């Protein structure tokens, strides 16, 4: 218990420290390096390396961990990379791995004294005019930059369906460019997400998975609306589908029951929770039931045959929650 508390306090402190380092690092770069960088590619490389250093640092500090899957798919030019946006960190995570990355920044970042140096040196696209924005993006792809877009336009709203703007789909269709989807998952879901205060860190360390998927062929799509709907579904299935739920349930099991030395990867989705499998007992089941009720708003009847069946495995629990959530 005490250890947990110390860890929690440390992560609050380290998150604050992380922000400070990021700001300070930006400032140092601003006055020492960026006045001398004239070449966009050099500036982008510097930013990528600085971001890489930053995420290694905060991983080392124990406030996040991350896994990159199929990263080799990013070693190409002129990609149109679309990613979902669960947390503030994922911009940094993604930009640390995409070479010659171009992205769209708020026009305020072009004015902000801390960010304007790097933003201008890297030639990032500014979104002050929506009409020119599309043309700027098309030009960027033509020059071979890897254009990285978060089609949600902002961070994901917690517990709501994904909502994509149609700009990214418009760019893909106009440039005849296939889409490279990157699915970002964050467990627990609440680290530096929209509307959350930064010091409200989750009970356990935030774990990120960056999954580079196979390119989506856009040839069959005729309109931006159609493509946007497809993309929304694609990302929804991957981030809020059964697979995501199963990982969440495992995480809830670990945190509620304070299973030390076990990670989500150690729990077999189909293994029995009680007895031979994970070895939980009836008190564990009660605690878990309360936690699941709180998290998903499901109601479970104690001692019913049905409830017992739901608690058979992680898969059974996740399927039950999934059914409950469906309209």
């Amino acid at each position, binding site marked *: 218990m005490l250890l947990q508390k110390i860890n929690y306090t440390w992560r609050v402190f380290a998150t604050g420290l992380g922000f400070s380092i990021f700001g300070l690092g930006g400032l140092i770069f601003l006055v020492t390096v960026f006045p001398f960088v004239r070449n966009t590619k050099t500036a982008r490389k510097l930013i990528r390396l600085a971001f890489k250093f930053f995420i290694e640092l905060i991983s080392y500090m124990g406030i996040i961990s991350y896994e990159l899957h199929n990263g080799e798919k990013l070693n190409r030019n002129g990609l149109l990379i679309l990613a979902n946006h669960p947390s503030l960190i994922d911009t940094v995570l993604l930009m640390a791995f995409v070479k010659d990355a171009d992205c769209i920044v708020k026009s305020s970042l072009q004015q902000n004294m801390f960010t304007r140096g790097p933003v201008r040196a890297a030639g990032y696209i500014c979104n002050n005019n929506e*009409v020119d924005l*599309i043309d700027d993006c098309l030009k960027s792809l033509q020059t071979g930059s890897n254009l990285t877009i978060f089609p949600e336009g902002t961070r994901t709203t917690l517990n709501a369906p994904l909502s994509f703007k*149609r*700009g990214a789909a418009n760019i893909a269709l106009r440039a005849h460019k296939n889409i490279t989807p990157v699915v970002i998952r964050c467990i627990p879901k609440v680290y530096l997400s929209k509307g959350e205060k930064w010091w409200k860190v989750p009970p356990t360390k935030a774990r990120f998975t960056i999954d580079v998927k196979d390119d989506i062929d856009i040839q069959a799509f005729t309109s931006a*609306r159609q493509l946007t709907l497809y993309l929304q579904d694609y990302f929804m299935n991957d981030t809020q589908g059964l697979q995501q739920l199963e990982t969440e349930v495992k995480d809830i099991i670990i945190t509620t029951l304070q299973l030390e030395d076990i990670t989500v990867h150690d729990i077999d989705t189909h293994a029995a929770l009680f007895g031979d499998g994970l070895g939980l007992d009836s008190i564990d089941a009660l605690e878990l039931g309360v936690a699941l009720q709180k998290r998903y708003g499901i109601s479970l009847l104690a001692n019913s045959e049905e409830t017992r069946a739901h608690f058979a495995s992680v898969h059974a629990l996740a399927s039950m929650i999934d059914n409950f959530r469906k309209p």
Partner: protein
Amino acid sequence: MNKDQIYTMTVDLLHEMFELDKSKITPQSNLYTELDIDSIDAVDIVVRLNQMTGKRIQPEVFRAVRTVQDVVDVLDNLLAENAT
């Protein structure tokens, strides 16, 4: 072309460009809040209307447009200029 014809043409255009259901479109339909037209779509509409009429709709004029009827009025004015 009278206003009714312009209206029918506008509805046909919206249907063709954005796969909108014609029965859901009324003169009072708001392009942005009801028909889910975004800024890129709006630019596309202006480009198409310019091509169709052979005239140039000023961006400021189209920025004031909210409903389907507004589009019809803009087109009507534009074609009236032509006549004089």
